[in-house]
């Protein structure tokens, strides 16, 4: 088993980060192009704790080294991951656990991501991935498979951070614009009311 760990700080509040997280893989993110689809499978609020539990199916498309392709077959270019997330609004935590659906009999990838507030304006992201090649045979091959996947996690993590930064910036801008528009509408309405009252 190999482990990939990473942690980042985002200069946005936990509320902003946890909201933008739902559209991390939208067109504003021009970096994480390996994620081609994100589908919500289920969504419930736990009555006892108020925790929002969501299941999403993440579809990725990414090229695979030739040696690995011949070893595992061609079914690896498009792969799917089940992500189960838990938002605890009382503790201000988002926890996302992900497991690979594709080739799960040969490779086991378990990833945990946590978003927690550092203070009112900053949020910490921590990521932990455990990668295990399950196929029998030579240790050396298992090692190579695990190393390849760790390398990919590292590459995707860098892109993911950059891409999410643009989503956060866009979300903040759009939100501010919306607030401004709502304010203008309210003012217009009030002016209208005053005019009507005066007439």
């Amino acid at each position, binding site marked *: 088993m190999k482990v990939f760990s990473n942690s980042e700080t985002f200069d946005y509040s936990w509320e902003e980060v946890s909201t933008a997280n*739902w559209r991390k*893989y939208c067109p504003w993110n021009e970096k994480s192009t390996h994620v081609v689809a994100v*589908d*919500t499978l289920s969504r419930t609020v736990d009555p006892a704790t108020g*925790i929002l539990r969501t299941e999403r199916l993440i579809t990725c498309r990414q090229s695979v080294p030739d040696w690995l392709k011949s070893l595992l077959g061609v079914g690896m270019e498009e792969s*799917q991951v089940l992500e*189960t997330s*838990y938002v*605890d609004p009382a503790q201000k935590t988002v926890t996302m656990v992900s497991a690979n659906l594709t080739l*799960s009999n040969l490779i086991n990838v378990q990833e945990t991501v946590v978003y927690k507030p550092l203070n009112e304006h900053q949020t910490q992201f921590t990521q932990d991935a455990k990668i295990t090649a399950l196929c029998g045979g030579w240790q050396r091959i298992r090692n190579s498979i695990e190393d390849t996947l760790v390398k990919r996690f590292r590459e995707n993590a860098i892109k993911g951070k950059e891409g999410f930064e643009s989503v956060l910036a866009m979300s903040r801008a759009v939100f501010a614009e919306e607030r401004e528009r709502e304010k203008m509408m309210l003012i217009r309405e009030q002016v209208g009311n005053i005019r009507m009252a005066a007439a």
Partner: protein
Amino acid sequence: MSQSLAKQCNEVKERYDTCFLKWYSEKYLRGIGTAENNECSELFKEYSQCLKVALKERGIDKLLEEAREDNKENDAVYLGRKK
């Protein structure tokens, strides 16, 4: 918003995602959206029905069942039922 795995579900998915995001930021995070039935429930039902067909066609539904079974431990931990 991101795409759906199935093109034919994109339109309803977009409407649901937009509805959810509004609900999440304006209600849920402010502690007023804990009801199981909310303004997005109908859209979600529609989206799920579309998606269900696509998942079955691609054989993903069976893989999902197994993965959900493996995730039960996480549910216990993160839904606070196990310390």
